[in-house]
């Protein structure tokens, strides 16, 4: 790397990290939180004995996972206005990413719930719990541990997917890199630099995942 490349690398690190801090990270965090709540609802619908409820959940999951995120973003931001629904960039992005996370994480949560041994449901019923209380006090806490690794994968994917938000006017990490690249014509360098920052974020996430797993592990059989 020669001097001017190096200078460009250093001078663009600021804006890229700024994009991560003001765009990528809050967008991912908010969307993940909202998406997780949605996913829980969808997972429970999918597990419901009522045919139509689980049918709706199935179709939702299938569409979310079967179509490109780019198109989902496009529809919400550019498509809905033709139905008279005009949503600002940030809320649009949060909606699109949450809907997406909702579909992927729903399957994770469903699998985690199913992985809790049937005997746990029975013990909960036996002591007089209702279905809802058994779910919230007995089943979900145990499902939580099982779903940490796949959910953190979902989160890592989400962090990278937020780069698509630049399409709908949200400025984030990758957009910043593109701007510098457009100015300096050094797209390779800038893209690598962006990758490096994504990687750093993911490494931090992985170590958080590790801590979370150890903490939850304390309460679970070995």
């Amino acid at each position, binding site marked *: 790397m020669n001097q001017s490349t190096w200078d*460009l690398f250093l*001078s*663009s690190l*600021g*804006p890229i990290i*700024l994009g991560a801090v003001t765009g990528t990270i809050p967008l991912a965090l908010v969307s993940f939180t909202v998406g997780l709540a949605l996913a829980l609802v969808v997972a429970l619908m999918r597990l419901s004995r009522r045919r139509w409820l689980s049918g709706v959940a199935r179709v939702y999951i299938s569409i979310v996972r079967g179509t490109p995120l780019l198109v989902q973003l*496009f529809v919400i*931001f*550019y*498509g809905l*206005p*033709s139905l008279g629904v*005009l949503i*600002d*960039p940030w809320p649009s992005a949060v909606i699109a990413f949450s809907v997406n996370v909702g579909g992927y994480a729903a399957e994770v949560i469903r699998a985690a719930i199913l992985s809790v041994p049937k005997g746990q449901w029975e013990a909960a019923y036996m002591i007089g719990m209702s279905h809802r209380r058994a779910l919230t006090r007995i089943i979900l806490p145990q499902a939580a541990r099982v779903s940490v690794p796949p959910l953190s994968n979902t989160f890592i994917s989400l962090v990278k997917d937020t780069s698509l938000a*630049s*399409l*709908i*006017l949200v*400025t984030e990490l990758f*957009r*910043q890199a*593109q*701007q*510098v*690249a*457009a*100015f*300096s*014509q050094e*797209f*390779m360098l800038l893209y690598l630099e962006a990758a490096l920052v994504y990687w750093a974020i993911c490494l931090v996430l992985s170590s958080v995942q590790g801590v979370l797993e150890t903490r939850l592990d304390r309460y679970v059989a070995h």
Partner: protein
Amino acid sequence: STGGSGQGTTAAAGGDTSLSSVQKAGTLTVGTEGTYRPFSFHGEGSGPLTGFDVEVAQAVAAKLGVKAKFEETQWDGIFAGLEAGRFDVIANQVSITPERTAKYEFSTPYTYSSGVIVVKSDNTSITSFATLAGKTSAQSLTSNWNTLATESGANVQAVEGWAQSVALVEQGRVDATVNDRLTYLDYKKQTGAAGLKVAATTEDQSESAFAFAKGSTKLAGAVDKALAELTSDGTLATISDKYFGADVSQ
């Protein structure tokens, strides 16, 4: 962005509120890429948005008595954004083509430029648009230069933008790329464009203008009027000179 005029394509001639809503809001919302040097880009990469189209749009807004507000998006979303009412106008070197004229309103052109074939300096086989036939050319799908290359019989390889096109020519993976002369000149000014040359230049000029949603005729008319004033008071020539060292607005 709530600054958009919001009437989209639905505005009938009688109910055209395109101009009044801009005036009421006090802002002209402009869609642009922000990554298209030297027309629409960020100074020093991360500085404020600038460029030829940006400055022209600002000057036009000033003439209309409003502020220009820019929304940056990728080319993929730019026309969708216009149709969805996300912005009032696109300022991004939109070339006037028959397909686009059918779907959008255009202002009078504010850029006249020619197309160039850029090849490696040691390339002797391409000397004109006629000799482009059968050669591979890297083109950004959405630009009218793509059409020109195709019509010349080139085997078009689609890429995302100018930077990738040039990289492909430099790496010898394609024979040529056809693009705006202005883009090439800016690239040459910045990087020296070592190892590249212009093999040919078009006879015809291409015309770029502001694009508006269908039916926004009042706004388009007002912009036309503003452009005429900017031409006559020399503002356009000044901006052009700043970026290109020549007047490309005529």
